[in-house]
């Protein structure tokens, strides 16, 4: 409601549709609160986002390529990865089940990889042979260092079928 004008020369009447001073100040106030609330949210999210992580290294040495004749499957429990001597070369793949993150096991008797949590099974190239997992085990980057040893990086996922030629 507009205040009754005290002095027409000091407070000229507001034209219809024109915002009053109170409207303008209210908008500025609400806008400032909205900016402050958004800023607080962004800053809080940013604060909760850790910048430095003291997590285990993602790379590890897996020995000489000569240790992996065709048909060899080595399971590194600590690094949660398999290094496999496959047909035509060596590859590494994650041992973390793609269903819900349990650690799979290599069952040498059956030549398969099985998850103890929910019963998913994979073949030795990581393809799903039995659910509930729907995605294959991802393949991991394998390189040779200067000394000719295998180095696996569990944080780098490479296309399937890309083996390291021995």
């Amino acid at each position, binding site marked *: 409601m507009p205040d009754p004008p005290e002095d027409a020369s000091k407070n000229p009447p507001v034209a219809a549709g024109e915002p009053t001073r109170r409207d303008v100040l209210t908008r500025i106030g609400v806008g400032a609160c909205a900016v402050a609330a958004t800023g607080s949210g962004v800053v809080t*999210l940013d604060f*909760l*986002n*850790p910048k430095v*992580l*003291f*997590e*285990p290294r993602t790379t590890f040495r897996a020995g000489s390529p000569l240790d992996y004749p065709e048909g060899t499957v080595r399971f590194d429990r600590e690094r949660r990865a398999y290094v496999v001597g496959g047909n035509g070369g060596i590859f590494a793949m994650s041992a973390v089940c793609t269903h*819900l*993150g*349990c650690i799979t096991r290599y069952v040498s008797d059956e030549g398969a990889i099985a998850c103890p*949590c929910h019963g998913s099974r994979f073949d030795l190239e990581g393809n799903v042979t039995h659910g509930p997992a729907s995605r294959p085990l991802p393949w991991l980057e394998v390189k040779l260092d200067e000394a000719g040893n295998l180095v696996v990086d569990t944080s780098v996922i490479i296309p399937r079928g890309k083996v390291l030629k021995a």
Partner: protein
Amino acid sequence: MSAHLEVVLLDRLRATALWRSIVRHGTEGTNRNRSLVIFENLFLHVHPVKVREKTLRFTHTFWLGGVTLVATFVLIVTGILLMFYYHPSVPQAYRDMKELAFVVDDGLFLRNLHRWAAHLMVLSAMLHMLRVFYHRAYRPPRQFNWVVGVCLLLVTLLLSYTGYLLPWDQLAFWGVSVGTNMAREAPVVGEKIRFLLLGGNVVSENALLRFYVLHCVLLPVVLLLFVAVHIWRIRKDGGVQGPLEEAEGVAEPETGP
């Protein structure tokens, strides 16, 4: 004779300046004073001044909401006591749990009480929800309180889940690994939610600390706020709705206070 003495002493106490400063209404047994007991007390005023006698009967609600609330209070008390011994750090957390179980006097009792009260709280909250559902008590004018109740169930489950990690044993570790991987499956934001929940890419000491803060501070505060609204709304929505025959019957006269 002794009963008479007690009455005299109580009257003396009620006449003191201290008592009069706390309780301002009169002490005569009038309906007005009985109402003022409720109105003028912060903790009681969420309740109605009068309730129908039949709504207090066991078979009316099976007291399931009350059981849930009592379990909540047991959890708060035992939880605060457990916090005096527990450090949310690796590997101290697991050692503290062992210490509580084998060294601290009554530690095992308190920890088990906390655990069983937590199970009871989830169970009775779910049964309470079923009771409300089968009595059609989720319908107007109680539809908002039903939504508050659903939020309470979610907070209860989150409290259960965040508490699950704190013992830092194998069950806790894999339970949280699996659960946060479920969060990862959420479209677009899943990966980020998991990262923020765990404070990293793996279940580690950051995750333990975050779950501890959620379990001991953030979620209990949210729970108590929602509980206050939930109980207050029972009064505002016209009291407890019980079995349908009674609700649809002719409006009964208010029983005495």
